[in-house]
């Protein structure tokens, strides 16, 4: 074989390779759909970009938009009630995941209303609307938004905001540094943050909140059981239409401020272990201080004492107010 033949062969191989290049090359458009079951389990993995997931009537899964410019294709499989869509990325991205925020996929995905949704990303913003079979949306650097979701709902990020609107079921919202905003949720609600600020307007029956340094503003309607804790943070909880609530709260040096209905019926047990303050704006009862120690303590009852309010702090503040 002479040199020119070798070159021709190389060119031919190269040309064939180019012809075989997938239509979904990086940054390329995608428009795919599958017929799926009404209660399909949908698993989506997209590392970077923007993903909007919308529940629609009908048994259809579809994905439209453009793939990540660094994607090495995608996988879309649908069998035995499980549909998986994955944007395939190189194992290592030079410059890390934290490069330009505009980079990444831009996708709109439609799923059946009754489907069970699972999304995972890294540098991705994700939103989901109307999914009723449960949803777990997780990312690392990015915002997570869930609206009109039902069932077991997990919205989780590390650095980013969480927005939860009109969700029903068992909600679990978690961030490390971002804000959490919940509005109109019902069912049970569990919220965790290290540094983020939390804002809640909820009618969930059960609410649990845990922050370390963050601040929380809870406007709750009809909540029967409320637990919250902080280390340094300040949590303000306003509880309305709850006549016999069960509240348990604690802080180390943070502030727990609780506002209750004036006609609440509950037993109160408030304790500041080492230098904390108790401010009772609900009744005329005053805290007592241990004779030989720093502890302050206040116990009293309103109405027939059906509910139970236990709040403790080490050196922080406890404040009771009435609506």
């Amino acid at each position, binding site marked *: 074989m002479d040199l020119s033949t070798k070159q021709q062969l190389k060119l031919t191989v190269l040309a064939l390779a180019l012809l075989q290049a997938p239509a979904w090359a990086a940054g390329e458009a995608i428009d795919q759909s599958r017929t799926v079951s009404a209660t399909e389990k949908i698993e989506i993995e997209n590392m970077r970009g923007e993903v909007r997931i919308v529940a629609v009537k009908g048994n259809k899964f579809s994905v439209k938009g453009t793939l990540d410019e660094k994607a090495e294709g995608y996988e879309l499989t649908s069998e035995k009630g499980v549909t998986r869509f994955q944007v395939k990325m190189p194992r290592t991205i030079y410059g890390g995941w934290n490069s330009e925020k505009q980079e990444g996929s831009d996708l709109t995905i439609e799923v059946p209303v009754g489907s069970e949704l699972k999304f995972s990303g890294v540098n991705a913003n994700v939103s989901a609307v109307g999914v009723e079979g449960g949803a777990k949306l997780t990312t*690392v*650097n990015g915002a997570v938004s869930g609206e009109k979701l039902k069932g077991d709902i997990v919205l989780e990020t590390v650095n980013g905001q969480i927005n939860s609107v009109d969700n029903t079921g068992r909600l679990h919202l978690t961030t*490390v540094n971002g804000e959490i905003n919940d509005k109109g949720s019902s069912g049970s609600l569990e919220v965790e943050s290290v540094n983020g600020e939390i804002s809640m307007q909820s009618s969930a029956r059960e609410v649990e909140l845990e922050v*370390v340094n963050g601040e929380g503003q809870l406007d709750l309607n009809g909540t029967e059981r409320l637990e919250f804790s902080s280390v*340094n943070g300040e949590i303000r909880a306003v509880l309305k239409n709850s006549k016999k609530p069960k509240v348990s709260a*604690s802080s*180390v040096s943070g502030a727990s401020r609780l506002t209750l209905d004036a006609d609440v019926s509950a037993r109160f047990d408030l304790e500041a272990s*080492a230098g904390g303050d108790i401010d009772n704006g609900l009744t005329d009862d005053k805290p007592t201080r241990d*004779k030989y120690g720093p502890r302050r303590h206040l116990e009293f009852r309103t109405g027939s004492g059906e509910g139970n309010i236990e709040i*403790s702090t080490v050196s922080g503040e406890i404040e009771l107010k009435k609506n």
Partner: protein
Amino acid sequence: MKTEQQLDALISQLAPEVEPQRDLWPELSERLVPRRQPVYRNWLGVAAAAVLTFWFWPQQPAIEPQLSFETAESTDDSRLLLAVSQQLQQQLNAEQTRQLKGLKQVPEGFTDWSRQLLIWHKAQGQIELALQFQPDDQKLIQQLQRIQQQQLSYIAKLVKTSELT
């Protein structure tokens, strides 16, 4: 010799309980030094060294650790507290070291991890001080456990995020 009636009369004149003539707490509180210096007072230094030392150690899967308590048979409060604290401390040190071994880089959002640990560290100090006055306060023990659990969870997330990004 005085009769029994005379002794009873003298006793009845005594105050029902002995009290200090003034509030001693302000002076005492200024002089208070924690009786037991926890090992993790030096944790930040250890953690920083661990991060540097184990920077490139083989990765281990980041799992969400859980602290667990063995049931203490003793009813003695101080022994129970000591047992709980030691158990927590051992688990905390072991888990943090194990988790930090897997760390390749400090990811976005965790660059002030040492400051964050310091916040927990100070909070632990406050709870421990309070426990010295109320050693059988279950709420304080629960707070201590929660804070240590938060640290473990935070480090687990740090490691997991480091792996993902």
